[in-house]
């Protein structure tokens, strides 16, 4: 197991580097003029303005030079200092976010993390529970209702579901608004009297004993959390159900019953634990997806997280932002996959031995 993890850890930077090269390759299909247009707001008044931008950002350099500069930074002509460079912890300047990419991630990640945090527990817990119930009542009415629920949920596009809940719970009833905080609450959060310990609004509000802010933050979270939860329940239910059905037929289940264990004990302890492997894979993938920001959900609910930023950056062809976010996201993805694999070993001793 240790060798396996070591091997995977060694290959990890190669994969992440490969992804950034892939992004570079895609964006190198654009001409310097097309890329410079990102930095131009109006029609330039001065002649040669675009050439100046191309010069300044080195957009005319050969692609490997640009990649090298992005990776290790470049020497400033005037001061002789080396500026930028991913290896030196600088992901560059994001034109879309109007600040450095690191700052953008620092600002957006807490929002996404808060969403992921609130979505994860009900999503995974209820998804698995429904799957087990469905498997236990195999082919009975409950199972059939849950299967319909799952396959329909699996067929609804995120944006249709999101707009649907907005239609009823926001436009009609006015209960849950889009965004992350109401204006008055945002002012309180920004004020000096309010300490932002974690930048997760719900947690900070509780720590500052501002329950009105907590309630406001929660109100903004409910719709995106519901959207994410329903669509992922459907998927987890499916996986849990089929894995549980497999397990329920095993002989050790009969043994467990023969020992006189209660049915609940048999199903939840002997059954579910043995059915966990595919569930962990899918659950892990869903969590990783959440941390990387959920593009569509955040866009619909106007939620200022990683996903909505990413959509903006990619749509406006902001090369530096896309590269920075991709580097971050793919690292999370690859690390997350590794973690999931390691988790297998804990859940299933047979894998650990191999």
């Amino acid at each position, binding site marked *: 197991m240790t060798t396996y993890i070591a091997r995977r850890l060694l*290959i990890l930077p*190669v*994969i*992440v580097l*490969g*992804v950034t090269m*892939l*992004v570079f390759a*895609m*964006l190198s*299909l*654009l*001409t310097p003029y*097309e890329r410079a247009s990102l930095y131009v707001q109006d029609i330039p008044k001065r002649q040669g303005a675009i050439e100046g931008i191309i010069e300044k950002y080195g957009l005319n350099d050969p692609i490997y030079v640009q990649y090298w500069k992005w990776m290790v930074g470049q020497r400033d002509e005037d001061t002789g200092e080396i500026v930028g460079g991913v290896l030196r912890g600088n992901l560059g300047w994001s034109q879309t976010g109007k600040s450095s990419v690191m700052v953008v991630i620092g600002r957006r990640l807490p929002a996404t993390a808060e969403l992921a945090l609130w979505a994860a527990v009900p999503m995974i817990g209820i998804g698995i529970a429904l799957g087990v119930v469905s498997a236990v009542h*195999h*082919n009975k009415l409950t*199972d*059939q209702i849950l*299967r*319909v629920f799952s*396959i*329909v949920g*699996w*067929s*609804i*596009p*995120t*944006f*249709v579901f999101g*707009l*649907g809940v*907005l*239609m*009823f719970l*926001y*436009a*009609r009833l006015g209960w849950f608004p*889009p965004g992350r905080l109401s204006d008055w609450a945002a002012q309180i959060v920004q004020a000096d009297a309010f300490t932002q310990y974690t930048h997760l609004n719900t947690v900070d509000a509780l720590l500052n004993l501002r329950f009105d802010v907590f309630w406001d933050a929660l109100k903004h979270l409910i719709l995106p959390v519901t959207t994410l939860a329903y669509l992922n329940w459907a998927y987890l239910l499916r996986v849990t159900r*089929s894995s549980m*059905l*497999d397990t329920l037929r095993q002989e050790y289940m009969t043994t467990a019953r023969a020992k006189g264990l209660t049915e609940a004990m048999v199903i939840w302890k002997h059954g579910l634990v043995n059915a966990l492997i595919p569930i962990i894979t899918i659950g892990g993938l869903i969590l990783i*997806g959440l941390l*990387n920001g959920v*593009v*569509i959900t955040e*866009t*619909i609910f106007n939620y200022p997280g990683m996903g909505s930023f*990413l*959509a903006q950056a*990619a*749509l406006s*062809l902001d090369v530096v932002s*896309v590269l920075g*976010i*991709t580097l971050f*996201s*793919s690292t999370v*993805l*690859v690390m997350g996959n590794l973690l999931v694999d390691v988790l297998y070993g804990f859940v299933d001793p047979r894998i650990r031995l191999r």
Partner: protein
Amino acid sequence: MKVIKKLLTNPTSLTGILLLFAFTVIAIGAPWIAPPPENARDPYMIPRDGFSTTPELPGGEHPLGTTEGQYDILYGVVWGTRTAFRIGVVITIFTAITGLTIGSIAAYYGGWLDEALMRVTEIFQAFPFLLAAITLSSVLQTIYGRGEAGALMFLAKGLALITFGSNPMKEVDPIQLQILTGMLAIITFGWMTYARVIRGNILAVREHEYALAARTIGASDMRILLRHLLPNAIYPVLVIASMNTGSYVLAFAALSFLGLGAQRGYADWGQMINFARNWIPSLADYWHIVAYPGAAIVLFVLAWNLVGDVLRDTLDPRMRGKGGGL
């Protein structure tokens, strides 16, 4: 034959097949159900009834109402069926072919080639899908916007021929070109599952005696691969393909919803829902701009998923007996 019988007798897949049949009828009958205006340049551009921004409720001349900009919803939903079929089927075929080619080459030749191809697959998988698709389609849109001929234009022409049946000798219609960019982006980042699955399966069947026998009698690599290995390893790919068609339609709809897939006013369900983004606070009044195109997408994807679900139960022996009718 057994598979077809099963698909037709199982209530789950029968529902799916009936839905697909209904969609097919709508797609074929589009010119009669929603006849395009007489001097229409392109029947896929939804006709407009004026230019007012406020959507109009269903009734009168527009049975399903109009969206922002007075695009007729009934027309869009009907002609959008054709778009959905084209997109779903063409993307599925191309992702499957790409994945099959890469996976079978990797598995058959093994060694460093296998190692290299699998690393590339991993790199593509480490790139979050929607981010990748959004980036690539916005890049492609800019490039194709230039209108230069090149290898990429050649690719677009090939895809246009298969998707729209357009003449490869002529310039590609810019409206179609924009749809092709979204499709290309999804194809580029959608083949990895196929590659991995087919590789695993070929590795398993490669060791069988019949493969060795074919090699002893001097069959070429190509022949062994195409005649002996692929047919024995291909079932799971069919299952994945049928289950994926729905998700490709969803992915393309997501691109359209973000304003990348189809052009404004094109008969594409995702694009039609894109209009609703400006009307979120008043969706309670203008529910129809989401409800009708939304229902069309859900039913279409549901149909493919229902068929795919039963197909998986039937074709994948490991899954046999687990499904049970709905």
